[in-house]
């Protein structure tokens, strides 16, 4: 094993987090390499020195402050809760909605007025005149297939000449 590869293993070796095979490999390198052996010993000393720092305790009011902040947290609302209105607001909204509908019904566009049956027949008869329109008739496809009309006046004239 090279000294470079030791970089990734030396702390795990000290922590006892290597497999048996890896540990044996590191140990073999340490036996042969003075630089890495000294480093491992000094890392171990650093590790022990870090143990000398005492722990501190949170101040006595810590839990109280956390709980107070949690109590001040707004309660979560579901989407359904957003639809729930206080009774007064719901009543006022309903009244407003009904009033709006009433105003629209009374004052707005009355829509199509129903036509009495006799007036409806008259309107239909008016539409019939369209059928007599020359353009409409000339563009009427089935009529185009008929043979041209016979001119009766010219036939009579021919008989007289004879």
């Amino acid at each position, binding site marked *: 094993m090279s000294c470079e590869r030791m*970089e*990734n*293993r*030396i*702390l*795990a070796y000290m922590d006892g*987090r290597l497999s048996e095979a890896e540990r044996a490999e590191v140990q073999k390198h340490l036996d042969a390499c003075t630089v890495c052996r000294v*480093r491992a*010993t*000094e*890392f171990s*000393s*650093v*590790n*022990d*020195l*870090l143990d*000398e*720092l*005492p*722990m*501190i*305790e*949170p*101040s006595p009011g*810590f*839990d109280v*402050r*956390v*709980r107070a*902040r*949690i109590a001040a*947290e707004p309660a*979560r609302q579901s989407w359904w809760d957003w639809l729930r209105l206080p009774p007064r607001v719901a009543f006022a909204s309903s009244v407003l909605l009904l009033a709006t509908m009433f105003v629209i019904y009374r004052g707005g566009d009355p829509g199509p007025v129903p036509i009495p049956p006799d007036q409806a027949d008259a309107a239909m008869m008016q539409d019939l005149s369209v059928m007599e329109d020359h353009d409409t008739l000339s563009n009427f496809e089935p009529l185009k297939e008929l043979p041209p009309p016979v001119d009766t006046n010219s036939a009579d004239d021919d008989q007289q000449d004879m």
Partner: protein
Amino acid sequence: MTRSDVQLMLDVKAGDEQSFGLLLQRYRTPLVNFLYRMVRSREQAEDLAQEVFIRVYRAREEYVPSAKFTTWLFRIATNLALNCLRDHRHEKLEISMDAPVTADAEDGDEKPFEVADKHPTIEQELLEEDRKKMIRRAIERLPEKQRAAVLLHKYQELDYAEIAKILSCSESALKSLLFRAYETLRVELAPLVARRGTR
């Protein structure tokens, strides 16, 4: 029977406030210590630790036990600490340059250095205090990410995979980070290391 962190968190999710109290009890000291060693101010450390617990509480309804609870907890704590250090970097520099030399006792009372009495025990105490101060300063001088890695590795005893997740890096990058941190500490603490070697 002691409930696991995940079980407690699932109970909190189900609306059991007492389980949150147990998590608070279980993790307030490790969190405050980790944050204190990260930001070097007891007051700030406690404020940040409170914020960690509040964020855990707020996220209770979305909690899914996909990772270890401690990974999640210390990830929040590390991010808050790194943000805090970033925000106060300029301020911190001014304080450390202007502040009088103090013993900066671990109990949070930053007492000014007193003139040493002739009494040997006080002298010994001062030497001991100097020694702790040197160790604290060595940790403090580490780059922020290396410091977080050392603290999580040394004091929280989290495994490499967990620390890597907290610091958002690969396990290999974490090992390299820790190696460099220990190399720096070895140099910074050389006088103490040498003394230990001669004992």
